[in-house]
């Protein structure tokens, strides 16, 4: 045991992410989430960062580094939606928190794709939970009594070091329900009215940009930057990611999106199951945290562990989220709990791979093990959704990632003192 610990120590000091090379992962149960379905014993070949072959009878290229996955499970890298990865180090240390702005004239234009920190020590921790990509999502900073409605734009990131930005502006983030109402003056109706007014403003602005610049349009409540940022939203090109929980709020948001012709993503949706058919009919995907089952507020009285299952059964595309900030690695357990409460296992895995990839328009690159896609692959020593399993190899864009984090380094530093108390209190 001590030998293992020492080896790990050495490994963590000297291992840097391996450069993209040719890797063949052989002999494992491959759950592709893509066109090849599930392969009982298969091989995945990754070259130059891309998946080049997946199948039961794929030849291993002679130059390939072989990862023996016999008896193990191979999945696409997990995609975490709604995270603070890259934006935060210690929540209560404000200088390390870049999730939101308190600027009074910056709302929709705030872009989480700026200022990302690829050296964040949260990233290896998340990676050890099998997460290879994430949606870095802005949060509100209400310290200054801010009344602006939008938190800003989310960005897709990769967890394999710099540069980590994958795609900018994958969604516009808006909180509704209790918190949104609070920000809009304390009532839900106020926010709904304000939003309609804002969308009208944006459309007006879009049609009269030149006049605006001549100072000849009517006065807008939003700044030019915010107006510009919202143009793709009103055009239905950028999804509006709305945090909302109460069933009636969800219906209101769906109605708003319908009348304003918006592309919508729902987040939270604790009572989503109660209006699942409405959501399904609207073709709107939902990001849920399936373990959140307490009636934590009056908008979540109907919260239940069966939310994900019920949404899935109604035909809603569901993505499952982690537990926020430092706890994204629990995303797969959340999916496991959804499965334990009735969600189909494949659907559970889809909810943390291909579904979030699709929802954020990234499925051309990630989310499944299909030839041509990025080489994001995780090898597990058991069921990836179970607490009893761990990743034994993680590839991002074809590169094997180090299997340690600051936490495991700490662990390994102190393991000897634990195992040999006679050594004293400190190593």
């Amino acid at each position, binding site marked *: 045991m001590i030998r293992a610990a020492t080896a790990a120590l050495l490994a963590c000091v000297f291992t840097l992410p391996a450069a993209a090379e040719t890797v063949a992962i052989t002999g494992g149960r491959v759950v592709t989430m893509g066109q090849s379905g599930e392969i009982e014993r298969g091989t995945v070949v990754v070259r130059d960062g891309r998946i080049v072959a997946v199948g039961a009878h794929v030849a291993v290229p002679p130059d390939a580094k072989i990862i023996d996955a016999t008896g193990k499970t191979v999945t696409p890298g997990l995609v975490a939606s709604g995270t603070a990865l890259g934006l935060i180090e210690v929540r209560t240390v404000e200088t390390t928190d870049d999730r939101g702005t308190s600027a009074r004239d910056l709302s929709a234009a705030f872009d989480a794709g700026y200022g990302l920190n690829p050296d964040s020590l949260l990233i290896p921790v998340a990676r050890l939970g099998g997460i290879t990509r994430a949606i870095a999502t802005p949060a509100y900073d209400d310290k200054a009594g801010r009344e602006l409605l939008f938190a800003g734009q989310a960005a897709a990131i990769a967890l394999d070091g710099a540069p980590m930005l994958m795609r900018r502006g994958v969604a516009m983030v808006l909180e509704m329900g209790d918190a949104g109402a609070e920000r809009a003056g304390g009532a839900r109706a106020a926010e709904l009215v304000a939003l309609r007014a804002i969308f009208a403003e944006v459309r007006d602005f879009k049609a009269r940009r030149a006049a605006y610049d001549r100072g000849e349009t009517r006065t807008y409540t939003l700044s030019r930057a915010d107006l510009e940022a919202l143009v793709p939203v009103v055009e239905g090109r950028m999804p509006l990611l709305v945090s909302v929980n109460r069933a009636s709020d969800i219906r209101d948001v769906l109605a708003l999106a319908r009348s304003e012709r918006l592309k919508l993503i729902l987040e939270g949706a604790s009572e989503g199951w109660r209006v699942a058919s409405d959501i399904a009919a609207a073709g709107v995907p939902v990001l849920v945290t399936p*373990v959140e089952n*307490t009636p*934590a507020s009056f908008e979540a009285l109907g919260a239940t562990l069966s939310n994900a299952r019920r949404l899935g059964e109604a035909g809603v595309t569901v993505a499952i989220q982690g537990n926020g*900030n430092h*706890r994204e690695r*629990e995303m797969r357990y959340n999916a496991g709990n959804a499965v334990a409460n009735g969600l189909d296992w494949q659907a559970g895995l889809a909810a943390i791979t291909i579904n979030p990839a699709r929802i954020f328009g990234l499925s051309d690159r990630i989310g499944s093990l299909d030839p041509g896609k990025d080489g994001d692959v995780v090898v597990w020593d058991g069921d990836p959704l179970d607490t009893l399993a761990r990743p034994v190899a993680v590839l991002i864009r074809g590169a094997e990632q180090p299997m340690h984090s600051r*936490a495991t380094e700490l*662990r390994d530093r102190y393991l000897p003192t*634990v195992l040999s108390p006679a050594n004293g209190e400190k190593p």
Partner: protein
Amino acid sequence: MGLADKLLRGGRATTLTTTLATALIFTGGGAFAAPDAAPRDAFPSTYQAAAQPPFAIVGATVLTGTGAEIADATVLVRDGSVEAVGAKLPVPEGYVEIDGRGKWVTPGIIDAHSHLGVYPSPATPSHEDGNEAVAPNTAEVWAEHSVWPQDPKFRLARAGGVTSLMILPGSANLFGGRSVTLKNVPAVTTQGMKFPHAPYGLKMACGENPKRVYGSKGRSPATRMGNVAGYRKAWIDAADYARKWDKWEKDGRAGDPPKRDLQLETLAGVLNGEILVQNHCYRADEMAVMIDVAREFGYKIRAFHHANEAFKIAPLLAKEDICVATWANSWGAKMESLDGIEETAPMIDAAGGCAIIHSDDGLLIQRLNQEAGIAMTAANHAGLSISRGEAIKWITANPAKAMGIADRVGTLEPGKMADVVLWSANPFSVYALADRVWIDGVPMWDRSDPRYQAPSDFLLGQPGQEFAR
């Protein structure tokens, strides 16, 4: 019937001694005989388990909480107590037989750190009663007076197998107040949930929280050295108070008794060994300082809570016989938790210490088994060798020890209270669900029977309650 009496008798071995000691020090007799002195039990438990026919769980894999894993085992429960546990025991006549084949049985889950009832759902200011954040020392407040028994989370925790839990005041203050240990049974009053004769705890908090709360108000403590000065001043006062009462007692109670002081009464209870110190403390260096403070004033720390850095001083903690209640997953929310690792509990265990996985959270309390599973798996990946039989103690026997109730719960040994969970699968798996839960042999949760799934009064008639969960 006499089940309640039996429960009281069961608890007598340690608690009666403790109670008598209190009586000697503070009252020298019945509480109401000398109304000026502290009563022994001002808010007595009214919890009584209902009588049940004896039953047997047959064929399950049993984790006893004593380290053993027994395949194809039989668990016999009679009169609210565990009667026998063993492989393929015969089932006596008259026992209701429960088929446990393919399933697992563990002692009831015990959460050593919860705020259920004092921070209920939904979170409204009117319900939030967990932190009397008005002074750095509020040892005079008792968490039980803030518990709202209708917090819907009690029922959710029950569905997660939690049968006992310690409710603590929050961590804003150096001395937050007394904790209370509850049986996780539905009740209208807090007294109806109180674990009979469980000792009180004193919540203490190190580090960032007190210094932030009071420092930001321009009051002491504003630094960690201010924290320590605050603890020490309080213990000096408490020692003085305890001495005055001792003297009055030794002088044959002549003259007026010293005037009672609720704050010092609690601290003196710690000095006298009746109240257990439950200390929120993250950093290894601060824990070492707290141990020195305890030595200076002659009390014991029963458990460090959260204790993300406990693994750095595991041998010290083992030597001092201080339990470590912590998580696998929580880390990094603030500076003092930055060094949190998944393997803290197993490393404490490996060093011979008392490791506990706790929740501090309304979601995690429903899945303490999974959190323990994560820690166990991470540890085994790191080269430690932790068995399931050992790891189950982190959420059963060890928290029972930290809470001073290990003589009655935490393991499946004959004579213990029959707090039992029947799991659908290996309890460390994410797929394991608590199929049935008994508290003192009384069925309290059954995943297939709505009679045991009734929600809190609060949720009656609320939207979205069409099915039980």
